[in-house]
């Protein structure tokens, strides 16, 4: 049956390509031929010739369209029936079922022309589905004794699936094209044994020619040319890639800068990152980078920071460590910090730069003024001073770019290749300018930020002050109400106290000194005195009187006050010494001054255990009278010193906590000053200075 069909086929079926039938012994009924192609033209060179010959033989021809209208692989629709399976490209099973059904429904010995299967969507697992489709089609063709041309583009199926396809397909033709020529080689054809079968051929104007030695040479030459071209393309690609890499780096730097401007990253960090960008291989790849900024207050251009290795050894070590590692900017920045410490040399160099802005002859100042990026070379046209700059950096070339912000020069970004000595290209200067712009905007932003923060804190301070003022107002209002009450009470209490204390004192005088009653009476007297002092403090605090000044003999005043304390002084066996320079006279309110001295001396006595020493010294010093009161008491702890003169502050269990506050107020009203020196465990000295003249 097979033999018979073969004979028939030989008589009736032609490929249409002259010479191919001879080689292939003709396509046979029941066979599908796969064309493994790269360029669709290769398939067309087989497809187009067969159509007229099929038409001539009156063989029914069907075309399966997958790519939709306009597919180059779709034959002339007038010569065959077209079936559109465009909708099924995402369902290979459905496609397979419909195609097979069509093959089955058509009479035997029909010819089926397939469209490029690559139109099938590459959904997961598509490979096996395509193989399955081919298996079913091949089986159906065989069963129906029809024939089919199936194109399969190279690379559509992985090699494992290609092997399966080769196993199940009767005829497998490998095609490829070089320029305008189409070449082919029949890799397998079941039941044919011609030697010519497996040679390489080319299709030359619809006829087949064998692939000659000359062809081989030409082919090799073309291949070489192609390789060269692709190599060139590759170089270009690498170039573009590195450019792209730099751009990416630049963009991520920009992104980082933008983000950091919104975050709390400080200016130093941003500038450091920009310098990293200038020196990193992924960035501009300079050896060293320096940042000089204008200091407005001191009117100088000064070195702010720098990075880069100081010698070849260090450079090799660092670059070696970085080689082949892809690091992000923050990783690089962290690394940069690591070697910034070792970088002392560049930083020393940078920080040593300090050029007055008025030094207009200086090249760097001029560049700052010109606002032009420049590469400073020994032959720098406009300036003799390029030498000194180059000498400073110990290089032949330095790229210098101004940091511009709204037409103002904030500073300069400098970069050089001290280690590699690589000349600086104009293009690199342009890239450096981009980085300088980032730096400038970062600085500008940071300054704005700082300004805004300053304003905010100023406002906050104002608000706090207002609040404090309000608090004080409320407080003073409350105090004045409270004060009225206190004043009324204090006055009312004062009169009975006079009776109690006075009579106790009278009784005391009658008693002999050692009697028990005498002790009790003393207690009454002392306690009444204390109450009176508290009352007097409270009253003064509530409504301090206007000082009524007259000439006061402070020696007499001190004597009087000390006299008031004769009882406790005697009891505690405190030694009192009063020293004064001649005529310690000063204009003051005697009553108020008495109150000051009372508070201070009372304080001194209370701070001393038994057998202390109280020393009062009065002396005129230049323009003021100084009164010092020293005790050998317990002293004042340092943390209490600051609050000593605050109202209601007291370390004692007794007392109003007002005495020293009132004293300081009175002294202040006299335009004088009061302060204290104290040593814990050794004693304290209070100093009162009263102006001698202006009072």
């Amino acid at each position, binding site marked *: 049956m097979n033999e018979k069909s073969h004979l028939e086929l030989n008589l009736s079926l032609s490929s249409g390509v002259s010479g191919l039938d001879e080689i292939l012994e003709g396509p046979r009924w029941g066979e599908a031929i796969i064309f493994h192609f790269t360029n669709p033209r290769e398939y067309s060179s087989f497809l187009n010739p067969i159509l007229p010959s099929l038409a001539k033989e009156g063989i029914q021809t069907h075309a399966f369209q997958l790519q939709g209208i306009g597919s180059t692989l779709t034959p002339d629709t007038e010569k065959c029936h077209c079936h559109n399976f465009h909708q099924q490209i995402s369902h290979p099973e459905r496609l397979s079922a419909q195609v097979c059904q069509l093959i089955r429904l058509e009479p035997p010995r029909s010819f089926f022309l397939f469209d490029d299967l690559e139109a099938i969507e590459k959904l997961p697992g598509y490979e096996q589905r395509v193989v399955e489709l081919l298996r079913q089609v091949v089986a159906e063709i065989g069963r129906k004794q029809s024939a089919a041309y199936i194109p399969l583009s190279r690379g559509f199926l992985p090699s494992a699936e290609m092997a399966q396809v080769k196993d199940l397909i009767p005829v497998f033709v490998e095609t490829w094209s070089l320029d305008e020529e189409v070449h082919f080689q029949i890799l397998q054809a079941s039941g044919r044994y011609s030697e010519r079968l497996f040679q390489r051929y080319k299709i030359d104007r619809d006829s087949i020619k064998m692939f000659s030695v000359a062809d081989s040479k030409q082919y090799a030459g073309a291949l070489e040319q192609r390789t060269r071209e692709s190599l060139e393309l590759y170089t270009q690609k690498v170039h573009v890639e590195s450019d792209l890499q730099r751009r990416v780096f630049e963009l991520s730097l920009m992104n980082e800068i933008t983000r950091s401007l919104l975050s709390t990253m400080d200016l130093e960090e941003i500038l450091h990152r920009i310098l990293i960008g200038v020196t990193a291989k992924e960035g501009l790849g300079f050896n060293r980078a320096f940042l000089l900024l204008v200091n407005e207050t001191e009117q100088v251009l000064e070195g702010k920071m720098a990075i880069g290795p100081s010698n070849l050894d260090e450079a090799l070590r660092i670059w070696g460590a970085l080689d082949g590692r892809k690091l992000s900017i923050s990783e690089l920045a962290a690394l940069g910090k690591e070697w910034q410490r070792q970088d002392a040399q560049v930083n020393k160099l940078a920080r040593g730069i300090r050029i007055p802005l008025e030094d207009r002859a200086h090249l760097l100042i001029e560049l700052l003024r010109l606002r032009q990026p420049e590469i400073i070379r020994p032959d720098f046209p406009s300036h003799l001073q390029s030498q000194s700059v180059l000498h400073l950096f110990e290089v032949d070339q330095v790229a210098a770019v101004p940091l511009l912000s709204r037409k103002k020069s904030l500073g300069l970004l400098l970069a050089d290749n001290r280690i590699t000595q690589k000349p600086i290209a104009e293009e690199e200067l342009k890239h450096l300018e981009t980085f300088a712009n980032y730096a400038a905007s970062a600085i500008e932003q940071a300054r704005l930020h700082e300004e805004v923060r300053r304003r905010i804190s100023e406002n906050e301070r104002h608000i706090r002050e207002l609040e404090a003022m309000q608090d004080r107002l409320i407080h003073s209002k409350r105090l004045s109400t409270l004060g009225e009450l206190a004043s009324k009470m204090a*006055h009312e209490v004062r009169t009975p106290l*006079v009776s109690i*204390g*006075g009579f*106790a004192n009278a009784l005391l005088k009658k008693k002999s000194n050692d009697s028990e009653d005498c002790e009790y009476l003393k207690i009454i007297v002392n306690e009444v005195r204390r109450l009176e002092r508290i009352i007097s403090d409270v009253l003064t605090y509530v409504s301090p*009187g206007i000082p009524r000044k007259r000439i006061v003999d402070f020696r007499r005043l001190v004597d009087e006050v000390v006299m*008031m304390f004769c009882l406790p002084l005697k009891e505690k066996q405190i030694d009192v010494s009063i020293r004064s320079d001649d005529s310690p006279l000063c204009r003051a309110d005697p*009553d108020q001054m008495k109150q000051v001295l009372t508070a201070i001396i009372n304080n001194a006595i209370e701070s001393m255990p038994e057998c202390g020493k109280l020393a009062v010294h009065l002396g005129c010093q230049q323009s003021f009278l100084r009164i010092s009161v020293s005790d050998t008491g317990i002293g004042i702890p340092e943390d209490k010193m600051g609050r000593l003169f605050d109202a209601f502050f007291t370390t004692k269990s007794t007392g109003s906590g007002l005495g020293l506050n009132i004293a300081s107020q009175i002294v202040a009203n006299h335009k004088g000053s009061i302060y204290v020196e104290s040593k814990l465990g050794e004693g304290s000295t209070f100093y009162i200075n009263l102006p001698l003249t202006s009072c």
Partner: protein
Amino acid sequence: MKRILVVDDERNLLKLYEKELREEGYEVLTASSGREALGFLDGIAFDLVILDIRMPEMDGMETLRRIMESPSSPPLILNTAYSMYKDDFLTWAADAYVVKSSDLSELKTKTSEILKRSSKTA
């Protein structure tokens, strides 16, 4: 012997001052109101008047003014629980201003000072 008139509405205080000043060697008379004091002053000569300010009916200030009206007014000490009257210029007419205290030494010192001064001028 110097004669002193003490004016105060507090009887306890009068008792105290009378006793203490007598011990100092003065002849002491007491009045418990301004009106009473003026009555005394009408007929008796005093070397010193010690006058309280806050009193019912006629207060110390009024009494002070009345006393001062007389051409032969004696020296005067204002003895009060209030220190604020010091700012009233009328009180400046007094020879001394003493804030009441259980410690009578200030009052006594001022008393003896003024008496000494007035006996000198006399």
